[in-house]
């Protein structure tokens, strides 16, 4: 068989065009002596014949028009990358996780204000998981991270109603279900009085909420980030949050799971 293998390439190449005279003679000589390779040669020819009998299929009508429409649509569309798909969005999640740890350490000893009544589940609801919410303006968090606060974030911090950065709220969320949209938006906007650009760290928000983008009636968007850090993605919190704000369609608030 090893002897035959030497001629396989020649046999294959002979299908694609004439071989150099020396190769052609060597192959013919081998085929005369080897019935297996003669059979293989015949089978190769049968396969090629069948292939060549296949006719090209017509392209569906409007093919070019569809391609060009897609190109024109892509050219006209502003090149805005969805914020949750952007690499820096993930960076922000990582930074938020870092900030969460830092703030967790910081708040040891800080008094907690509990407002269970505001978000108590319905009486018939199954056993609920407690969700501790701590709010911090991003400018402050940036300071925690040691980076200078960008203008946009600093403005948010200045415009924010005066409040205790250590304010804490206990919210009930059913395990393994997405938090109620209105509940979360109200939590951020009304109860905590936060403004766009706020970073809200939620200790026990269900992981299922990660990546969810909530939009309130007034256009404010609330983004739930993963707290899982990714290697090599560490950047300053201020930088990432500022980036998210620039890309967002309107006011944004950020939350992260623990």
């Amino acid at each position, binding site marked *: 068989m090893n002897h035959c293998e030497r001629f*396989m*390439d020649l*046999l*294959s*190449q002979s*299908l*694609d065009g004439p071989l150099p005279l020396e190769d052609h003679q060597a192959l013919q000589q081998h085929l005369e002596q080897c019935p297996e390779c003669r*059979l*293989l040669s015949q*089978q*190769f020819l*049968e*396969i*090629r014949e*069948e*292939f*060549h*009998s*296949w*006719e*090209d*299929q*017509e*392209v*569906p009508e409007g*093919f*070019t028009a*569809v*391609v*060009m429409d*897609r*190109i*024109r649509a*892509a*050219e006209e569309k502003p090149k805005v990358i969805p914020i949750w798909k952007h690499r820096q969005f993930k960076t922000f999640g990582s930074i938020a996780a870092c900030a969460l740890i830092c703030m967790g350490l910081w708040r040891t000893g800080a008094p907690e204000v509990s407002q269970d009544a505001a978000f108590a589940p319905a009486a018939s609801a199954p056993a609920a998981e407690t969700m501790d919410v701590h709010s911090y303006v991003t400018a402050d968090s940036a300071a925690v991270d040691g980076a200078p606060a960008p203008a946009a974030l600093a403005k948010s911090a200045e415009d924010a109603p005066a409040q205790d950065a250590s304010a804490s709220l206990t919210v009930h969320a059913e395990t393994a279900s997405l938090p109620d949209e209105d509940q979360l938006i109200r939590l951020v906007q009304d109860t905590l009085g936060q403004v766009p650009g706020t970073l809200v760290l939620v200790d026990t928000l269900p992981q299922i909420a990660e990546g969810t983008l909530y939009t309130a009636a007034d256009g404010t968007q609330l983004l739930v980030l993963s707290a899982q850090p990714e290697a090599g993605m560490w950047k300053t919190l201020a930088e990432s949050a500022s980036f998210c704000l620039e890309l967002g369609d309107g006011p944004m608030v950020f939350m992260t799971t623990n």
Partner: protein
Amino acid sequence: MTEQELVARAKNGDQDAFEQLVRDNEKRIYNLTLRMVGDPEDALDLSQEAFLNAWKGLASFKGDSAFSTWLYRLASNACLDFLRSKKRRQDTTGSPLSLDDEDAPPPPSDDTSRPDLQLERKERTLALHRALDALPPHHRQVLVMRELSGLSYQEISQALDLDLGTVKSRLTRARIALKKILSEDGNFFSPPPSIPTEQ
């Protein structure tokens, strides 16, 4: 206008020039993707995707090969990605690869006066489609380019970024693998004439 001129204009953002390039190449690219993936709808998506990628990547096309060869490269790479992803999905769900009669292009419509020959012809065509579908994607790729798209060794070498020796040896292995699958299928090759044994 030559292909080079059209490419030069398209590179400068001339969509009409690119539209002409699409028209000139749509049939060969669609047929390549159709032979690679088998399903007409998938082939349509993949071939259109190849043209979109060509438009986006025009700046990177240096003109070392023909524009059509570059398109073959984009389209066949898209097909390979698609086939790998499809295989992963099938590995996950456990559903086997299959080729329905509807997926296979119809056999040539001759022999209308001989239904038995038509049936035999259809069987052979389907057997070859099944065998092609069962080949590893990189084998299918070179075979389709050579046997169906009619590319030369040099063009395949440029499209796949392989040296000529690798193209030749890969074609040999692909043909042997295809022949093996067809032999096992049993519906393609005519049975060899029996050799009388001497008593």
